[in-house]
Each structure stands twice: as structure tokens, then as C-alpha cells.
């Protein structure tokens, strides 16, 4: 790598006078950088502490099993937990096949074609689409065919797929890229067709990495709120059918408990924090398990 224009003027002597002053500056800047790092982590620890200490009181059996249906200012979040599972599950079912196939295209079939270059670029751009815009897209898509009052679990999943698929493509591409070529060539040499090579050699080799990538992508979308506010609506009873009726996930539940608290405000806020704690727990577990899966099951490539 030669950065011609950017080559720093190494031969221009370090400025700043005496050695003593330069050493002091070095110490000061090092201290400043360490301080900045500590400052950056304060919010993380404050947030984790607050979520745990404020979330635990509300996290009881009723929260996990009850619903607010027919109960004024009470009930649990079972409907939201079910909603989280259904919405996230359908999103995964949509995103993973499309994402992995697109990644296969990028690594195995793309070559130097224009489509490949465009796709690589725009997948990156798509990871920056605001989540609320993805929600509006899903709403517009369904509203054109089914009318503007429509709210479905499926709409939420479509919105979240717009956010999740680029993440799946990116991570899958990374792990498919590091499958060594000699494995593919050995397979071709045995007369195996290309597609069987991909299905039987490339994908199994990359399997742990693919699973890890999908889990991290799921963790990224499981706590989404904004796109669901405009697509799945708010509801107070359990709905397991993504093709009919409103649905709500834990994040939207936390938001609505905060936004429209019941008569006993504090109880509602407690439930919002309990939902936040549950969400953080889910996200953390997914992230940690994803890394463990990768460490434990990745194929050693020599």
C-alpha cells in the first residue's frame, strides 16, 4: 500500500521543542485518549446498571405469562414476547435464504461483473437505511394493495427484513470469502458440479460463521421499535398469526407502557423497564452465544 499524496512528512523533524516538552505532550495525549475511552464507556455501564436495577422489580411471573387484556393498568407482556418470537422468526425466514443466496452470488458467481460491484456497494448503503423508513416502505407496500388501515405482523417482518438482509449478506460474504479455494478445486477435481460443491463443501465449511452472522443479525433487529410502530400496531392480546391482525414486540410494548402509562404510572414504567431488561438479556445472549458458536464449531482451516 503506497499512499503517495498522503505520505506524512517523516523527515520534517518532530516539532515542539525540547525533549522534555515532547515527552510531556506524549503523556498528556495518552492520558487524554485513555480518558476519552473511559468517558465513552460510562454510558454503557450506567445504562446496564439502570436497566437491571429498574427492570428487575417488574420482571415477575405475571410479566412473563400474563397479558393486559381486560386488566386496567396491569397484566403482563406475554403477548409481546409471543409477538417478538413470531415477528423475528418470520423476518429470519425471509432474510436468511435471500441473504445467503446473495452472498453466494457475490463470492461464487459474481466474478468481476457489474452486478457484483453494484451489489457490494449498495448492500453497504442499505445497512444505513433508517429503520423508520423501512417501516414506511412496508406500510406503503401493503397499503397500496390492502388499504391504508392495514396492520399485520407480516408487514413488520417485511420492514425488518429490509434491515436484516444486508447484515446477513455482509457477514455471510465475509465467511464464504475465507473458505480456501483449494477445497473448491479439490471438489471440482472429483467431478462434483459447482452447485453441489457449494452446498456440500463451501457451506458446511462456513457453517459456524454463517450461524454466528445470522444470530448477530437477529440481535440487531429483535429490539427494533420504530418500523413496527407503523406496521404492526399496538395490541393487548396474544396473536400468533402473522397474516392476520395486529401484533407487538417487546420493544413496542416497552414504548407503549412508557407513552401511555396506566393509572398507576410507576407500575407501567416498571413494566417498560422490565421489557427493556428482557430485550437486553436477549440481545446479550444472542451476541455471546454467537461468538461461542463460532469459537466452538468453526472449521479449522490450515
Amino acid at each position, binding site marked *: 500500500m503506497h*499512499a503517495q499524496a498522503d505520505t506524512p512528512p517523516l523527515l520534517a523533524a*518532530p516539532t515542539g521543542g525540547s525533549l522534555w516538552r515532547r*515527552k510531556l505532550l*506524549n503523556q498528556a*495525549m*495518552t492520558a*487524554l*485518549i*485513555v480518558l*476519552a475511552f473511559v468517558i*465513552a*464507556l460510562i*454510558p*454503557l455501564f450506567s*445504562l446496564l446498571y439502570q*436497566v437491571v436495577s429498574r427492570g428487575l422489580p417488574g420482571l415477575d411471573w405475571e410479566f412473563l405469562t400474563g397479558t393486559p387484556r381486560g386488566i386496567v393498568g396491569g397484566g403482563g407482556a406475554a403477548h409481546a414476547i409471543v409477538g417478538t418470537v413470531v415477528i423475528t422468526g418470520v423476518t429470519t425466514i425471509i432474510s436468511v435464504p*435471500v*441473504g445467503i*443466496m446473495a452472498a453466494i452470488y457475490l463470492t461464487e*458467481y459474481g466474478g468481476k461483473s457489474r*452486478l*457484483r460491484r*453494484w*451489489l457490494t456497494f*449498495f448492500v*453497504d*448503503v*442499505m445497512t*444505513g*437505511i*433508517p*429503520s*423508520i*423508513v*423501512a417501516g*414506511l*416502505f412496508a406500510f*406503503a*407496500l401493503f*397499503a*397500496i394493495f390492502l388499504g391504508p*388501515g392495514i396492520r399485520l405482523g407480516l408487514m413488520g417482518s417485511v420492514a425488518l427484513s429490509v434491515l436484516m438482509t444486508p447484515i446477513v449478506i455482509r457477514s455471510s460474504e465475509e465467511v464464504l470469502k475465507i473458505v480456501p479455494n483449494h477445497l473448491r478445486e479439490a471438489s471440482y477435481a472429483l*467431478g462434483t*458440479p*459447482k*452447485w*453441489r460443491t457449494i452446498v456440500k463443501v463451501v457451506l458446511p465449511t462456513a457453517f459456524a460463521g454463517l450461524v454466528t452472522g445470522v444470530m448477530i443479525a437477529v*440481535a440487531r433487529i429483535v*429490539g*427494533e*421499535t*420504530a418500523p413496527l410502530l*407503523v406496521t404492526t400496531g399496538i395490541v393487548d392480546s396474544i396473536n400468533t398469526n402473522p397474516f392476520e391482525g395486529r401484533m407487538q414486540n417487546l*420493544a413496542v410494548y416497552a*414504548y407503549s407502557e412508557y407513552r401511555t402509562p396506566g393509572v398507576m404510572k410507576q407500575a407501567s414504567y416498571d413494566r*417498560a*423497564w422490565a421489557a*427493556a431488561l428482557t430485550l*437486553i438479556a436477549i*440481545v446479550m445472549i444472542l451476541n455471546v452465544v454467537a461468538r461461542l458458536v463460532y469459537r466452538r464449531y468453526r472449521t479449522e482451516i490450515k
Partner: protein
Amino acid sequence: MEPSQATGAPPLAAAGPQRRWGDRVFSNLAVAAGVTILGLLAGVALFLLVESLPAVGASPDQLPGGKSLVDYIAPLAFGTALAATIAVVIAVPLAVAVALFISHIAPRRIVLVLGFLVDLLAAIPSIVYGLWGIFVLGPAAVPVLEWLERKFGFIIFFKGPASATGRTMLVAGLVLAVMILPIVSAVCREVFSQTPRKLQEGALALGATRWEMIRMTVLPFGRSSIISGSMLGLGRALGETMAVTIILSVSGIVTFNLISQANPSTIAANIALDFPESSGLAVNTLIASGLVLFAITLVTNLVARAIISRQNIQ
């Protein structure tokens, strides 16, 4: 290889046509998936456009607030830009420092753990940031806001009167800064750690201190990554919804006052607040504002990605 298999030679020739067929189906599927993604991006633009057309054609008195579409969206766009600017101004210096710390200063053994901690910041759902912002950071910030008003009230940003709840633009921007910090820092870290060793060792060999080495080799080498990372962070801050929706107390005005109770809303927060209760043309108006947000973030991200991919080619 067992002897019995050797005698019954595999019918290679027979597999020929089937092989072609399977390959064709599979490669077409892969291409289709790729085209779907590009089509999806075009579809987002197309469907938002179609659904916002009714609002574009409508007369002002039919739209929410009785204002024309431009007058409706302009203050929101201002609020969006203001919140995102605060976030970037706060986050970028911190993110660069965090990246430098992880790539050049922290002991090797703990780098993985530190990286994981910073990534955790990015993994926390925005709704949780919102709750934290309004219940924890906001109240904690009130004395600081009052102090800013007292000491720096002559600056337009801190004119006050200071909010008593902390639901201000400054606090919203601060939370956004925390949310985008890991993204900016990840982009910088990646490039900082790729600074050619010969440059770094050359600088040290010439007698530079570690900070001088960083200033003369790592920062110039990573300059474009700082820019592109900042753009990515900006894009994220522009589109971030829930944290702003929850924290900001909005009144639809245009002001640079960052510490008062009356703040401009942002496009995303306005959609999240109003959409669930809207119908008819109001929905189309909100979608039109969403289209504007989409266009702004798309341009931001395009520029950021163009810088990054040019860098990679180098």
C-alpha cells in the same frame, strides 16, 4: 477407498446433463437473490414516492397544520440536521480516541474485550437508550443545563430558559452521540490498525514519541476513514428514531436554543409520534417526510461508502 467401489466406476458421463441443469438453477437463484436486493432498494424509493404523491398534489389547507408540504417538512428537517450535528460533533473526537486507544495504546491482551464492550454499545436497542435518556441522563443533565444557561447564556445555543426535565436538544444529541460512537469508532479502528508498520517504525526510529508517531503516521493514514466513519455516523444519527421520540420535548419551532423545553422535532421522531394516530392525507404527508429523510440518509451513506471503497482500492 474400498475395492468394491473401484470396480463399479462412478457413471461420470451420465451425470453430465443433470449437472448442467442443477448448476443453472442454482446460479439463477443466486443471481435472483442479488437482483432482489437491488430491486428492494429501488422498491423502497418507488413505494415511498407513490404513497407521498397525494400529499404533494394536495392544497395546504388539507394537510396537517394547514401548512404547505415544504413548510411542514422544513422545520423537521432542521431539527433532524441539528440533532445529528450535535451527535457528530460530540461523537467523532471521542470515537477517534477510542479507536486509537484500542488500536495503538491498550495492552494487546485486553483489546478483544475492549472491542466487545464498544460493540455492545451498538447492540443495545434504541428504545432502551430512549428510556435511559429520559429517566436517567435527562434528570442528571438538568444542573448542567442550568449552569450552561448561567455561564454561557450569551451564546445562542445556551440562551435558555433551561429545561427542568432535561428533555432538550442537547440531551437528545448526547444520546445520539453515544449510539453512533461505536460505528464511527469501528470504521476508524479498522483503518488505523492497517497503518503500514514501516511508517510507524520509521517514525519511532527517528525518535518520535508515541503520540508524535500517531500524529504523523496513523492519523494522516486514517484521515479518510475518519471522514467516512463520521458520515456513516451522521447517517445513523439522522435516521435514529426512538431515542429522539422519547427524549425530545417538541413544539414545532425552529431554534438553535439547545437547552430549553421548546425544541424542533426531527423527521423520524415526528413520524413515530404522529403516524399511529394519523389517517388520510396526514399519512401521505408523513410518508413524504420519510421520503425526504430517505433521500438525505441515502446521499450521506453514498458519499461515505464511496470514500471507503476508494480507500480500499488504494
